[in-house]
């Protein structure tokens, strides 16, 4: 959630603020779990193709690690740009 949303919470009365905060919390938890699941699915699909053995080999392990790191870095960058666009700030070409 972007910080600007949290700042507006201060203008609300106490009980409303608590309710909003709880809603945001639940949304964040649900979203994180969903992201985790979809990340696992993606990296498995992209990195694991053979099933001759039941354990991941070194190649598959590295691939999965790189996939996860890459996606998380990508997600952070998208978050940055998303926040900028949300605020209507001009973005570089």
């Amino acid at each position, binding site marked *: *959630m972007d910080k600007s*949303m949290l700042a*507006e919470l201060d*203008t*609300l*009365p106490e009980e*409303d603020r608590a*309710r*909003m905060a709880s*809603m*945001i919390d639940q*949304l964040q938890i649900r*979203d994180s779990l*969903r*992201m985790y699941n*979809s990340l696992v699915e993606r990296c498995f699909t*992209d*990195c694991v193709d053979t099933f001759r053995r039941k354990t991941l080999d070194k190649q598959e392990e590295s*691939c999965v*690690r*790189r*996939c996860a*790191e*890459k*996606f998380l*870095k*990508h*997600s952070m*960058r*998208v*978050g940055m*740009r*998303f926040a900028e*666009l949300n605020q209507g700030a001009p*973005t*570089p070409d």
Partner: protein
Amino acid sequence: MAASNNAPSGIDKEQIFGMAEKEMEYRVDLFNKLTQTCFNKCIEKRYKESELNMGENSCIDRCVSKYWQVNTHFFVVVFSLDLKKFGSILQY
């Protein structure tokens, strides 16, 4: 949300919370779709390394920007096309 001296009636407040929740869910959904889509478009699946290179960074920035434009444009187009058809969506 504007602060007011009169406490909103029970019904108004529920509607406002309902709308706020829907708005937040919409934003989260938009962000997730945007992230997935631009990853698919910009990042090669071979995962040679864990860092994002310069090309990928630019691609991500531009992809996000364009996706955002489509999203804004689409909103205007869809809701002006046939207000009768989409009018039901606008009734909270």
